[in-house]
């Protein structure tokens, strides 16, 4: 046997061969499927929805926490950077306000100032004073830039309109990344001069590179054109153009989600640093940040899968066990029902045999006596019998033999139909055939049996053997209830909707109202003392159900009982 065959429960393909199309109380496969489906839905739907909800909630909270953390880091860093720049700008501002033009022009004084600036703030490389024509009038620093003409430089053009200018990071002549901070001082006579300092971006770089950014993160500064102003870990060197788009302006710290060149989801936190061309950016890999969450998620899904599998196994197991038990019980029920039916069949056969024996024995007795008489005449009287007398005797014997033959024929005909299943039925014929068996009893007991079958009853398909058994049982029942000289009326009527009704109405003793509800119960009998098995009516009920019909009973104590059978004119679909 294959594994599938071994796993398949017995009820799966079980079918009660003996049961009629109406006897199938349970469809085990359907019951099993329904049980499994219902329990599965009821158990798994809440479980899965709870886990889904939990999944969403935790995912959202973790995501928002990551966003929040990034935003905090960006705004802190922005504050540091803008503080750094403001500090340096303010120092220059202070100087330009405090010093006179002469003081600036004094190289010793300027060198001392630069020295002091380096000591106090750090990051300054050189410092120079530029006149309104763009000529550097005084300069202190590592290069020889005195007299340099800046009038065509873009930053100088800018400073004409603004008090303070902070440049992008650029290489300039120095071949070192640096930025310029320039402040303009307008004198009371409207003439102005510009103090210009170069600031090393090393300080910047250090600031950013010391930043601890989780999730393989990167912190760097770009300008408004998207050029990197500080080196980055993963997004290119200084002055390279950033592969990501320049984020749109916002006065506040922003965190966005985006995709990097490799298609991975990243978190971009940025902030425009006010009064500078800089944008601070912190880029984090979302996948890495979410890693702990993914691990938890994996565990959650694993747990869910394990629970679902266990639940399914238990449901299938329990359902299979229970349905198997039901099937077993049903099987036993059907077996005992069959046994009961069989014993009833035997009982009816016994009754039939009794009737037949009586009817055959009578003609046999006649044959016996006739032959005996013939012998008597030949032996005792010793005379010749006239041939006419002999012919009389022979005729009489032949008539008796014919009677016997008719009875045996009828019996054979009846028995032949017991096994045959669905076939066309002539109701009138079947009823008369059945009554014939009880005819003698009726005759002896002066019971008047009237049969009324109208001619408009069509032939219909049904189980002849079962019908015979039903009629025989009802007939027996009526005879038991009738006293001698009673009446039994059998009426057949065509009902609407393709139904035919057969009524057995007797004017016998009737059934007490308290027993009426129980007459179809097995082993319920009021005749137990008189040879009743208590099975006749319950079996009749079963038989009627099997051929798709219905049986009801009405009775009044002392007035009689009527059994009504309704049968479909069309055979039931099996």
């Amino acid at each position, binding site marked *: 046997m294959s594994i599938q065959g071994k796993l398949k429960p017995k009820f799966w393909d079980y079918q009660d061969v003996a049961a009629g199309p109406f006897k199938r109380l349970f469809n085990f496969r359907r019951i099993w499927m329904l049980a499994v489906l219902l329990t599965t839905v009821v158990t798994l739907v809440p479980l899965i929805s709870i886990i889904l909800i939990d999944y969403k909630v935790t995912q959202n909270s973790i995501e928002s926490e990551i966003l929040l953390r990034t935003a905090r880091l960006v705004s802190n860093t922005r504050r540091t950077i803008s503080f750094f720049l403001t500090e340096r700008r303010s120092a220059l501002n202070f100087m330009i306000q405090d010093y006179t033009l002469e003081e600036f022009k004094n190289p010793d004084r300027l060198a001392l100032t630069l020295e002091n600036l380096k000591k106090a703030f750090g990051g300054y490389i050189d410092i120079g004073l530029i006149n309104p024509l763009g000529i550097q009038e005084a300069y202190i620093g590592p290069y020889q830039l005195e007299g340099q003409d800046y009038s065509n430089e873009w930053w100088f053009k800018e400073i004409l309109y603004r008090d303070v200018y902070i440049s992008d990071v650029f290489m300039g002549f120095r071949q070192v990344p640096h930025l310029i901070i320039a402040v303009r001082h307008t004198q009371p006579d409207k003439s102005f001069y510009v103090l210009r300092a170069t600031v090393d971006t090393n300080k910047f770089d250090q600031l950013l590179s010391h930043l601890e950014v989780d999730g393989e993160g990167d912190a760097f500064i770009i300008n408004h054109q998207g050029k990197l102003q500080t080196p980055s870990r993963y997004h290119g060197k200084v002055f390279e153009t950033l592969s990501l788009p320049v984020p749109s302006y916002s006065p506040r710290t922003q965190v966005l989600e985006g995709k990097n060149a490799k298609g991975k989801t990243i978190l971009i936190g940025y902030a425009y640093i006010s009064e500078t061309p800089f944008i601070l950016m912190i880029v984090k890999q979302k996948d890495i940040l979410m890693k702990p969450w993914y691990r938890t998620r994996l565990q959650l899904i694993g747990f869910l899968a394990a629970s679902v599998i266990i639940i399914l196994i238990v449901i299938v197991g329990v359902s299979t066990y229970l349905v198997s038990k039901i099937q077993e019980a049903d099987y036993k029920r059907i077996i005992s029902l069959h046994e009961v039916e069989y014993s009833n069949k035997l009982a009816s056969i016994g009754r039939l045999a009794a009737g037949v024996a009586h009817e055959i024995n*009578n003609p046999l007795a*006649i044959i016996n006596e006739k032959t005996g008489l013939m012998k008597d005449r030949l032996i005792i009287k010793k005379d010749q019998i006239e041939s006419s007398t002999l012919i009389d005797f022979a005729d009489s014997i032949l008539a008796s033999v014919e009677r016997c033959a008719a009875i045996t024929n009828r019996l054979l005909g009846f028995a032949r139909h017991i096994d045959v299943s669905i076939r066309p039925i002539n109701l009138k014929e079947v009823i008369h055939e059945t009554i014939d068996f009880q005819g003698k009893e009726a005759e002896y007991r002066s019971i008047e049996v009237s049969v009324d079958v109208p001619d408009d009853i069509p032939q219909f398909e049904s189980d002849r053997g079962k019908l015979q058994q039903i009629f025989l049982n009802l007939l027996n029942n009526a005879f038991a209830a009738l006293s001698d000289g009673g009446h039994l009326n059998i009426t057949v009527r065509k009902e609407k909707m393709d139904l035919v009704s057969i009524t057995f109405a007797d004017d016998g003793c009737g059934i007490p109202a308290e027993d009426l509800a129980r007459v179809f119960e097995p082993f319920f009998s009021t005749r137990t003392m008189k040879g009743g098995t208590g099975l006749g009516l319950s079996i009749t009920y079963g038989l009627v159900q099997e051929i798709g019909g219905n049986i009801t009973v009405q009775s009044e104590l002392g007035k009689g009982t009527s059994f009504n059978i309704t049968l479909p004119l069309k055979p039931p679909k099996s």
Partner: protein
Amino acid sequence: MPEKVLLVDDEEDFLETLAERMQVRGMEVSTTTSAREALIKTEQESYDAIVLDLMMPEMDGLEVLKAIKKKNPEMQIILLTGHATVEKGIEAMKLGAMDFIEKPVELETLTEKIKEAQAQKLILVEKQTADKIKKIIQSKAW
């Protein structure tokens, strides 16, 4: 002394043949197909034996048996039936039937039973007569 027998059965053919055969054997036979007629006849005459069919249209054999036994307890009745059940046999014996025989029956068996019945009846009648005489002797003081 010929045995005086009454045959009661609803099968006329059977009745006549049996009667003829019994007459050949020297019995005095009356027949009837009706249970009621049988009752009347037993009231009018005395029989050594009555052979009674159990199943008859008007009246059950057992009922006839009861009725006859009520009036003439000494009457010997043999029941004859096409279908004998133990139950019916016991009932018949309880009601005082002499015997219970199933059809078809050998005439010899039946004759024997009838003879037996006659003897039984004789004993009964003699006993009755003796009782009567005793009574008369006791009551009349001659």
